[in-house]
């Protein structure tokens, strides 16, 4: 074999080998991208306004209301939240209930279902005096927490305080007790009665022992002693009653003041049972 055919054979074999492996030939390719993308998580949360303070009278059944507003501040397309509010830690003698309205505040806890798009939810705490003799001022604690429905996240608890001020009950005053007093230098006579602050008193004078005869009523703006001006001679009967915002007491017992026409010290004072 001559050299020229041999060289041609070798070169041809190399070319064929390169073609079958592709190593020496460029080949097609093309590409597109699966685009960059991301996901994000939201949150479960709410806010609550501060409830107002309430004042209750120390009278059985006395009620007062405090309201506050819940706002679902959660983030997330499918976020569903149940917010539960409970009352606890009420002062002695006080009962607290909570509801979505004051009229429906009859239970110790209430749950409301919200979403981020929900309107704000108002809740009412109704405070009632159930033990007048032990009712004292203090705070009602409202504990609020949220939970994702049906399962998932939950929020930390939020504590709110409803300040409750208990004021003494105002009731009709009891009848005063009138007592004999002392002579005055000008023939007048001072007598006294049991008195309490915050009351006004009416002093009644009559010429008969049973509110009969001529009489007059004067208002004593202050407390006893009251100075009675007595004619000489005269016999008069004196009684007192007390008045406050709740009403007027019954009459006190009766004093009989008798001046016998003698000296200025000749006055008899007797407590007369009505």
């Amino acid at each position, binding site marked *: 074999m001559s050299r020229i055919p041999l060289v041609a054979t070798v070169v041809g074999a190399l070319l064929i080998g390169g073609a079958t492996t592709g190593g020496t030939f460029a*080949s097609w*390719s*093309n590409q597109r991208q*699966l685009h960059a993308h991301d996901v994000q998580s*939201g949150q479960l949360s709410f806010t609550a306004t501060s409830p107002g303070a309430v004042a209750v009278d120390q009278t059985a059944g006395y009620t007062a209301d405090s309201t506050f507003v819940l706002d679902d501040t959660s983030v*997330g*397309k499918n976020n569903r939240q149940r917010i539960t509010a409970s009352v606890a830690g009420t002062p002695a003698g006080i009962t607290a209930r909570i509801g979505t309205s004051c009229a429906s505040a009859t239970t110790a806890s209430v749950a409301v279902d919200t979403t981020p798009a929900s309107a704000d939810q108002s809740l009412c705490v109704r405070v009632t005096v159930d033990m007048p003799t032990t009712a004292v001022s203090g705070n009602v604690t409202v504990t609020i927490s949220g939970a994702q429905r049906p399962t998932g996240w939950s929020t930390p608890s939020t504590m709110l305080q409803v300040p409750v001020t208990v004021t003494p009950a105002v009731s009709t005053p009891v009848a005063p007790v009138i007592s004999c007093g002392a002579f005055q230098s000008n023939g007048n006579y001072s007598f006294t009665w049991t008195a309490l602050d915050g009351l006004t008193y009416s002093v009644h004078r009559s010429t008969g022992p049973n509110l009969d005869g001529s009489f007059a009523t004067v208002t004593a703006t202050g407390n006893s002693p009251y100075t009675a001006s007595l004619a000489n001679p005269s016999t008069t009967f004196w009684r007192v009653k007390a008045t406050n915002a709740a009403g007027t007491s019954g009459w006190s017992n009766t004093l009989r003041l008798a001046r016998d026409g003698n000296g200025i010290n000749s006055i008899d004072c007797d407590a007369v049972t009505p």
Partner: protein
Amino acid sequence: MNKMIKGSIAGATGVALLMGGFGTYALWSDSENLAANGVQSGELTIDTTAGEWDDVNSAAANDWNGATDKMVPGDKVSYTQTFTVNGEGKNLRGTITLGAQNLTSGFGAGNLVRTVAVDVSGAGAADITKVDDSNFTFASPFDTATLTAVVTYEFKSSVTDTTDQNKAASVPAVNFVIAQS
């Protein structure tokens, strides 16, 4: 005029007469066309469209806004992007490969589960072999087919308290390559 000159003139005259008589003789000839011919190249292409988001747990279609919606425990959302591939050429063979998708996640381990599924459909699907969700091969021309990539994110409903609130997870763009081999 000598004899040589006379002979030359006679000869030239004879040749001229002979040449003038060619047009009166027919000669055979024949022909065939080399037929018109050419070659054509095939194609190997891949195209795509914008991806679409869907809230998997709802009946509605494409109802997740990837730009604004936020996930909560129990949510499952999907990102779907389709790729149209064309392959023509008698001896065409090759591969289709999705590059590695590296998820960057601020979520706790196991709380956000991502899955990637790629399936082929369309007229040429029978000529494309799925090796796994990132690799396909073809040993013959397939004309046209559609590859659908679905990336699903599931935020586990078992997540409680305030775990993984306001977190993000993302993947960069990844090449989907179709190549002759």
